[in-house]
C-alpha cells in the first residue's frame, strides 16, 4: 500500500509538471500504431497475394541492370530498412541519404523531394534511376513474364498479365507498395508514456525516465520541435529548409522540393494519371493543388522521428552522423543560411549540455528496439 501511495504521489507530482497545453501536444503524437487503411489508388493494397509478390520483388536482384541490386540493397531490414550510408549506393552513389521505408504508408509525399504522390509511384523511381537499379519497363516486364512463379503470382493479384510493358511495370510497383505498407514500427516507451498520460495512469507515467520527460517538455515547449515533427509519426509530411547546405559537390546543387514538384507534375505515374485505380481520385487533392514557389528550392521533407535512433546518419545528405550532431546543428543554426524569402521558423536553440542529453534521452524512446521483420519462409511455387 505504501509503495502504491508513493508511486501515485510521485506520478501526480510529475503529471502536474505538464501543463494542459503540454498534455494536448503530447497526446497529439499518438495513438500508435495507426489502423491500416488501404490505398485506394492501388487495387493491390492490403491484398495478401500482393504482399507476398511484393516481398519477393523487394529482395529480387535481377530487377537491376547488373543483376546485383535489389530494393533491399539500400533498405536493409536489420538496419531499420535503411543502409547506414551517408548517401545511398545502388549501381552508383546517389545524392541523398536512404529514407527508411518503415511506416512509409502514412506519408502524403514520398522521397526527400516529394516527387511522387503514391507509394507505388515512388517504388518505380529507384527501378528506373540509372544510378540505382537502372532498368526500364521492357526489362522489368520481360523478367516477370519469363519467371514462372512471379508471373503466376502477378496474375493472381492483377488477373491477366497486361500486354503493355509499362502496365506490367506499374503492377510490379503496386505489389512492391503493398509489401512496404506492412512495414510498421512497433510500440515504444514513449507510446506507453503517452497513453498513460492520456489515461491518467500514474504507474505508467512514473515508469517513463525523468530525463526523457524533460527532453519531451523541451520538444513540445521551448524547442517547438513539434511544429514540424508533429502527429503520431512525428512529421508534418511537408518540406522545409533547415539550413543544411544543398550543394552536392563543385557545380552541382540539390534543388529539393522545387524540382520535386516539377517532377511530380510531369510524371505520367502521378495520381492524376491513368494508372490511379481510384476513379474518384480521392487521394489526388494534394497533387491537384500543390503550390510551387521559389522558397521550395533547397527544401526537403520532414522525416519521421520514429525509430530515429536506428536511422543514422541523418539529414537529406547524411551529413550528420549522430543524433547529437543533429541537435548541434539546430542549436547553432544561423538564420543567414536560410532563404531570405522563406518561412521564419528556425532559430538557434542554444542548447545547454543537459538539454542536449535530455533531448537525446527523449528521442531514443521513440525507437521500438529493432526490426521484428522476418522474411516469410519460401512458400511453394505458384502454379
Amino acid at each position, binding site marked *: 500500500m505504501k509503495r502504491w501511495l508513493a508511486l501515485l504521489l510521485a506520478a501526480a507530482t510529475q503529471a502536474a509538471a505538464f501543463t494542459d497545453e503540454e498534455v*494536448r*501536444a503530447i497526446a*497529439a503524437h499518438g495513438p500508435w500504431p495507426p489502423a491500416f487503411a488501404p490505398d485506394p489508388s492501388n487495387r493491390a493494397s492490403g491484398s495478401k497475394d500482393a504482399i507476398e509478390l511484393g516481398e519477393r520483388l523487394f529482395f529480387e536482384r535481377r530487377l537491376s541492370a547488373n543483376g546485383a541490386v535489389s530494393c533491399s540493397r539500400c533498405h536493409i531490414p536489420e538496419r531499420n530498412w535503411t543502409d547506414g550510408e551517408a548517401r545511398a549506393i545502388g549501381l552508383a552513389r546517389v545524392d541523398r541519404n536512404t529514407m527508411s521505408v518503415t511506416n512509409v504508408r502514412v506519408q*502524403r509525399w514520398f522521397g526527400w523531394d516529394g516527387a511522387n504522390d503514391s507509394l507505388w509511384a515512388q517504388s518505380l523511381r529507384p527501378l528506373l534511376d540509372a544510378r540505382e537499379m537502372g532498368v526500364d519497363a521492357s526489362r522489368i516486364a520481360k523478367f516477370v513474364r519469363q519467371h514462372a512463379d512471379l508471373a503466376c503470382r502477378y496474375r493472381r493479384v492483377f488477373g491477366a498479365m497486361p500486354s503493355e510493358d509499362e502496365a506490367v511495370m506499374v503492377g510490379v510497383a503496386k505489389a512492391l507498395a503493398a509489401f512496404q505498407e506492412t512495414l510498421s514500427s512497433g510500440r515504444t516507451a514513449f507510446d506507453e508514456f503517452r497513453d498513460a498520460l492520456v489515461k491518467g495512469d500514474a504507474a505508467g507515467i512514473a515508469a517513463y525516465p525523468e530525463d526523457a520527460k524533460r527532453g519531451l517538455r523541451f520538444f513540445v515547449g521551448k524547442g517547438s520541435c*513539434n*511544429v*514540424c515533427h*508533429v*502527429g503520431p509519426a512525428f512529421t*508534418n*509530411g*511537408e*518540406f522545409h529548409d533547415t539550413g543544411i547546405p544543398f550543394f552536392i559537390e563543385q557545380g552541382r546543387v540539390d534543388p529539393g522540393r522545387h524540382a520535386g514538384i516539377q517532377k511530380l507534375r510531369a510524371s505520367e505515374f502521378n495520381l492524376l494519371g491513368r494508372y490511379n485505380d481510384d476513379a474518384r481520385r480521392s487521394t489526388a*487533392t*494534394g497533387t*491537384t*493543388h*500543390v*503550390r510551387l514557389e521559389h*522558397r521550395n528550392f533547397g527544401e526537403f521533407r520532414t522525416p519521421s522521428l520514429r525509430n530515429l535512433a536506428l536511422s543514422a546518419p541523418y539529414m537529406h545528405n547524411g551529413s550528420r552522423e549522430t543524433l547529437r550532431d543533429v541537435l548541434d546543428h539546430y542549436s547553432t543554426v544561423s538564420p543567414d543560411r536560410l532563404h531570405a524569402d*522563406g*518561412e*521564419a*521558423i528556425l532559430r538557434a536553440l542554444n542548447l545547454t549540455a543537459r538539454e542536449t542529453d535530455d533531448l537525446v534521452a527523449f528521442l531514443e524512446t521513440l525507437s521500438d528496439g529493432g526490426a521484428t521483420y522476418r522474411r516469410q519462409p519460401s512458400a511453394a511455387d505458384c502454379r
Partner: protein
Amino acid sequence: MEKRRAAVRAAALSLVLGAGAALACELPGGPAQTIRSPTHSVVYRAAPRLGEHFAVEFAVCPAPEGVRVDAWMPAHRHGMNYVPAVKALGGGRYRAEGLLFHMPGEWEFVFVLRAHGATQRLVRGLRVE
C-alpha cells in the same frame, strides 16, 4: 464640387447597400463564422484538421466580381503549400477546395474580394492544434 458631392453620395449609398446586404448574408447548413468590411460580408464554414485537406464553404454579400481564398501563418511568415480552387455555386455562394494546414499554431483565413475595380482582404484568425 457637384461631382465630388455625387461621388460622396454614391460611396455612402454603396456602404449602406453593402451593410444591408451584409446583414442578410447567410450560409445555410449550420453554424458559420462572419467577417465584415465596410462594403462586404463573408460568411464561411470550415472544419480544418491538422494535416488533412479540407474545404471552405462560404457566401459573399454582395456578390463580388472575383474571389480568392488563402491562408497564412503570420508568425512563421508562410502560407499553405497548396493553392485552393474556388468554385462558384451561384447566389453569392462558393466552395474552396484543396486547403491544408500543415503546422499547428495560429493561422489566418484570407478572403480576397474584387469589386468595383478594387481589391480587399477579409481576414480571420484561428488556432489549429
